[in-house]
């Protein structure tokens, strides 16, 4: 379609176009209140480069694209937990370099003033961080790989340390070069201790033997028991009195005294009773003799000392046995410990080399980072919030939409009109060229 055909069609269908425009404008006017206001927060960042240096990674012309990249915006979306889609966020974020300077304005348009400010600032912050990532990305790869290798070496070292600790725990002397001498000295000291303990044991045993109580009660003990028994004492008193009466009667009377046999029998009976009471008192389990009790206590203490001496001797024997077993195991465990120690030394060498390389990589990364950086120059604040003209933009969009519909309707009607109006259509119909047109509408 040529320009002339376009103009002709517009002229022919001008009524449709004007009608649609009128309806569209009326609808726009009716629904003007449905378009909410929006706010724009604007922050500024500046690209700072080291004097005389040139950051090979990013230049100022690249910053708008980076600021509106999905990487940066997705991070902002996650950090702020924004309830809007990434596409919507991207469409409302604007970034433009101010003139030929190194300053870039970052704006965000939203119906909420607070969100407009926070998103604008968040994009600036994230841009600064992401710029550093880009500048040092090639070094980060090296650093990460070296860090991973270092961690692997550290794990190996830790495993070796654990193994060596286990070996040392079983044989603490392997860590010493004079472990055999030490163990031998220990054994000798233990032998001395055993000899002393054994002598002490023998002395204490002899002492215990001497303090062992007799099987029969001593006279003191019998006296103490019988003296403390009232029945025995009563029988003894009665027998003594009757014996005294008998002696008196014998002195006073002759053998022919009739009462004498009775008294003799009574005294004999009472003597027998005394013996019975003595036997009973001595066999009474409740009979108590302080001297016998003291002897038994002393003997028990002596036996306890002897038992302690025996235990000490046994303990010393055990320790000496362990020391001898350790002494026997020194050649095997020592070799294992030496192997582990050698492995650890090799690992330490590798670890040191890797650590040196990582330190160099970090230094290079820091140097690259210092070549240039994005600094947030001016954060969006409340005062910077402004009415962003959302209605104006919506009106422009709506007007364009209405114009599109108007012209679209005109050309749709034109295309559906079966009437032949253009010379091209006639030539297509007849296959004959049009040589003249008479009339303005032809």
């Amino acid at each position, binding site marked *: 379609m040529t320009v002339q055909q376009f103009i002709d069609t517009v002229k022919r269908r001008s009524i449709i176009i004007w009608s649609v425009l009128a309806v569209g404008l009326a609808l726009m006017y009716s629904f003007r209140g449905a378009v909410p206001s929006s706010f724009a927060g604007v922050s500024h960042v500046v690209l700072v480069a080291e004097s005389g240096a040139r950051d090979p990674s990013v230049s100022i012309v690249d910053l708008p694209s980076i600021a509106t990249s999905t990487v940066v915006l997705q991070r902002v979306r996650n950090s702020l937990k924004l309830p809007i889609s990434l596409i919507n966020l991207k469409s409302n974020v604007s970034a433009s370099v101010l003139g030929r300077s190194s300053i870039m304005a970052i704006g965000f348009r939203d119906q909420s003033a607070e969100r407009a400010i926070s998103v604008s600032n968040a994009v600036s912050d994230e841009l600064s961080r992401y710029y550093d990532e880009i500048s040092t990305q090639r070094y980060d790869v090296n650093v990460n790989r070296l860090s991973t290798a270092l961690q692997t070496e550290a794990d190996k070292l830790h495993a070796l340390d654990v193994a060596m600790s286990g070996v040392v725990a079983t044989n603490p002397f392997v860590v010493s070069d004079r472990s055999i001498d030490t163990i031998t000295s220990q054994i000798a000291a233990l032998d001395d201790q055993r000899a002393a303990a054994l002598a002490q044991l023998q002395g204490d045993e002899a002492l215990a033997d001497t303090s062992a109580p007799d099987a029969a009660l001593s006279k003191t003990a019998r006296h103490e028991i019988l003296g403390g028994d009232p029945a025995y004492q009563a029988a003894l008193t009665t027998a003594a009195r009757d014996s005294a009466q008998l002696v008196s009667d014998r002195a006073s009377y002759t053998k022919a005294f009739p009462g004498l046999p009775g008294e003799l029998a009574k005294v004999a009976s009472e003597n027998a009773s005394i013996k019975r009471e003595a036997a009973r008192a001595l066999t009474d389990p409740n009979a108590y003799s302080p001297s016998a009790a003291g002897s038994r206590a002393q003997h028990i203490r002596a036996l306890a000392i002897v038992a302690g001496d025996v235990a000490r001797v046994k303990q010393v024997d055990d320790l000496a046995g362990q020391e001898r077993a350790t002494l026997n195991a020194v050649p095997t465990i020592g070799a294992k410990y030496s192997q582990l120690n050698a492995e650890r030394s090799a690992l330490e060498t590798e670890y040191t080399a890797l650590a040196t390389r990582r330190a160099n990589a970090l230094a290079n990364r820091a140097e690259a980072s210092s070549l240039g950086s994005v600094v947030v120059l001016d954060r969006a604040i409340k005062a910077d919030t402004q009415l962003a003209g959302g209605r104006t933009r919506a009106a422009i969009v709506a007007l364009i939409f209405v114009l599109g519909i108007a012209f679209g309707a005109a050309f749709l009607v034109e295309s559906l009109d079966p009437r032949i109006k253009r010379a091209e259509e006639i030539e297509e119909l007849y296959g004959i060229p*049009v040589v003249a*047109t*008479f*009339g*303005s509408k032809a």
Partner: protein
Amino acid sequence: MKHRIATDSLGREFRLLRNRIEAEIHAPAVLLVTSATDRDGAGLTAYGLAESLSKTHQRTALLTTSATALPAGEWSSPAMPSQRRRATDRLEAGNTTVEGGLSIVSISHERLATISRSSIAALVQGLRAEHDYVVIDGGGLPDNTFGLLLLASADAILVAFLAGRQQVTADRTMLDTIEKSEAKVLGVVMNDQETIDHFNDRVQKLDPGVARNVTVSKAPATPLVQRLEVALQRLGKSF
């Protein structure tokens, strides 16, 4: 009905068409102006072309049946049979001029219904002998006996088309018909309805410039448009 027609533009278009025809078809020649329907403005084209040719001192004859555009009662009046016959047979018609001019020969429907192919051929040959160009108004070709009769006599054909009408079956019929002839097809002339209506109004307003009871062939050989302009000026109307 009042029509506002840019006569200057119309005249310029006819001059351009005339120049084109003069360049492609050399005199003497018979030009058939035809169309698929009788509403395409073949009459307008034929009249305008004939008038334009006559202005260049070409002896031009317009052969038409446009009596239909005039009040039918006037042409079918019993008082005028001899004049009509003479006119249609071209016995007394022929207001030819030596230094160009326009002769209009109109054939009535009654005569057209009875005229033979040889007679019409003889009429055309006679006109061709006396004129540089013979322009035939043969609109509505599929249904026009007059046009069909004269198709064989034509040296060139112009097709008129009414801009804004829909395609009809007659278009295909007309194309098939003119393809069978040996005449050279010069092209299509686009007309709009307003110009055609204006032309028809002018034809009907021949009175009083041209008496309706006189065959058009007897009208003065002055250009029709000029005559009309004079008549309209007398009536105090703009063209």
